[in-house]
């Protein structure tokens, strides 16, 4: 008997600090698997954000940096320019990337920085207790939109893949989800591609994961995945936006 599925070497033997059923752990595992499969563990480094995944720097089995809120793409830029022989990824949530970090992500993407950005979108701020995010859906209730997100007052959710797709430089942009087995399998392919393109020095790669927040949505882990499938996927459409490596732009 042999192990056919097991904890990747690129993850340390440390329990994650995420809520039960939160899909952050799946995203971490996909990234770790891709790093293992491509033999990159000795050359890999990453940047953890501020948000639920602030402790991501503890979870990966290589050197990591923790960055100020929203600044991960800038920190990663500095890291890659300082150690071009290493490969860098950032891992960010919707507040980190689409609120305070909007300038940093747009400009890192626009410069075509050699990095992979993994963006977890769960339409809410998890770590600080369930406030509205730039990706919160219309009429969605959060602790800072207690009457529902009023689009007349504060506009609509931001679709980051679409936004970045207007830029010339980015090499690969895809939106995937972690909401079902087939979706996770597709997400793994996207992660592998992003890491591989990064390894090959092709430029800026971006994967957005539509994910859940059971705790702050007030749903259990299984219900949250259903809720996200019904409510988030119509607005945040899954699919490939561009892949310069396959002529599909």
């Amino acid at each position: 008997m042999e192990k056919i599925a097991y904890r990747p070497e690129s993850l340390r033997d440390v329990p994650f600090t995420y809520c039960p059923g939160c899909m952050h752990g799946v995203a971490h595992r996909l990234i770790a698997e891709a790093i293992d499969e491509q033999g990159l563990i000795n050359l890999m480094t990453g940047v953890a954000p501020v948000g639920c995944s602030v402790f991501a720097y503890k979870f990966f089995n290589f050197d990591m940096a923790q960055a100020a809120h929203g600044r991960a793409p800038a920190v990663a830029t500095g890291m890659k320019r300082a150690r071009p022989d290493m490969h860098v990824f950032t891992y960010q949530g919707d507040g980190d990337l689409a609120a305070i970090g909007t300038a940093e992500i747009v400009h890192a993407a626009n410069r075509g920085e050699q990095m992979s950005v993994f963006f977890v979108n769960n339409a809410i701020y998890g770590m600080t207790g369930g406030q509205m995010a730039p990706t919160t859906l219309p009429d969605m209730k959060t602790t800072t939109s207690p009457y529902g997100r009023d689009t007349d007052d504060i506009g609509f959710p931001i679709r980051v893949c679409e936004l970045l797709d207007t830029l010339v430089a980015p090499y690969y942009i895809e939106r995937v989800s972690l909401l079902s087995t087939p979706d996770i399998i597709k997400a793994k392919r996207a992660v592998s591609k992003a890491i591989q393109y990064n390894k090959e020095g092709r430029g800026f790669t971006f994967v957005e994961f539509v994910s859940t927040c059971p705790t702050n949505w007030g749903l259990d882990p299984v219900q949250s995945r259903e809720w996200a499938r019904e409510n988030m996927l119509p607005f945040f459409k899954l699919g490939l936006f561009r892949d310069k490596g396959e002529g599909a732009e």
Partner: protein
Amino acid sequence: MSKILMKGNEAIAEAAIRSGCRLYFAYPITPQSELIEYMARMMPKVNGTFLQAESEVSAINMVYGAAGCGKRVMTSSSSPGISLKAEGLSYLAGAQLPCVIVNVQRGGPGLGDIQPAQGDYFQATKGGGHGDYRLICLAPSSVQEFADMASEAFDLADKYRNPVMILADGMLGQMMEPVEFKPALTDEEIEELGEQHTDWCIHPNQDGDLKHHHEINSLEIDPLVLEQHVINLYKKYAEIEENEQRHEEYNISDDNEILCVAWGTASRVVKSAINELKAEGKSIGMIRPINVWPYPYEAIAKAIGPNVKQVYVFELNTGQMLDDVKIAVEGKVPVKFWGKVGGIVFTPAEIKEKLEECFKE
């Protein structure tokens, strides 16, 4: 090595490159745009990285990333841009990352104007960013000193794993004076420097290495661990206070009736006034702090000679280093202050007038 006539902004850039800086991230802002432009021209010539960031916020975070990889890295800005970097400076200090930040100060607060000032002293030496930390702060008063401080700053940053700020101003940045540069570090020397921090920085795992897991981080969610971390930081700062105070004594003697204290550009004007009054038989001494953090408190106290009746502080602000002078003097002698704001530099005549008033009292 021959002397070159050079603008301060360009001299510091040239000196930084010679000191082995191969990464520079910044945003244009008057009165230091010549610095970033010089770097844009010269960094590629030494195969370094020049990157104009989208903001000063982004630039300081790029510095954080590069410093986390153990390499010599610099940014520069002017007062409003330094405010934008405040968060980054706190993070750099908390994560103990070596780097150099040049502040070419201008009139403030807010957008202010583009003329020289010294209004960022509090920001540099007492905080700026949040939390308990210190920046090592060097305050040049000539273009030569400005250039010399490049290697001093990088060496201090590496020695203590701390951000170092060079507090210049628009006058120093813009004016041209003769500069003699130290010889440039060779590629081999820079390569060695780049590997001095491998006990903590981000770098590849070599084949056969015990896999290392280094964390470039300032978060410590366990209060007991954070407490110990801050205590350790302050042990480091105590060591810096012990070893890195630096000042200049100008015309100090037992005959001094007034002791002036001034830093940076202001000190040059005060020197001129002192010289004029010396020619008229008045004995006035000056202590010029060269490092404004750690601050030379004892040097000032010691310089209060037997005949000193007045300590006079002159700054291009509303009285910031003044507080440190009062701490140094400990009420032994009255401390007076006179300053100019609005980005205006006082003249020797104005200083002379203020000093003469003391003799009339």
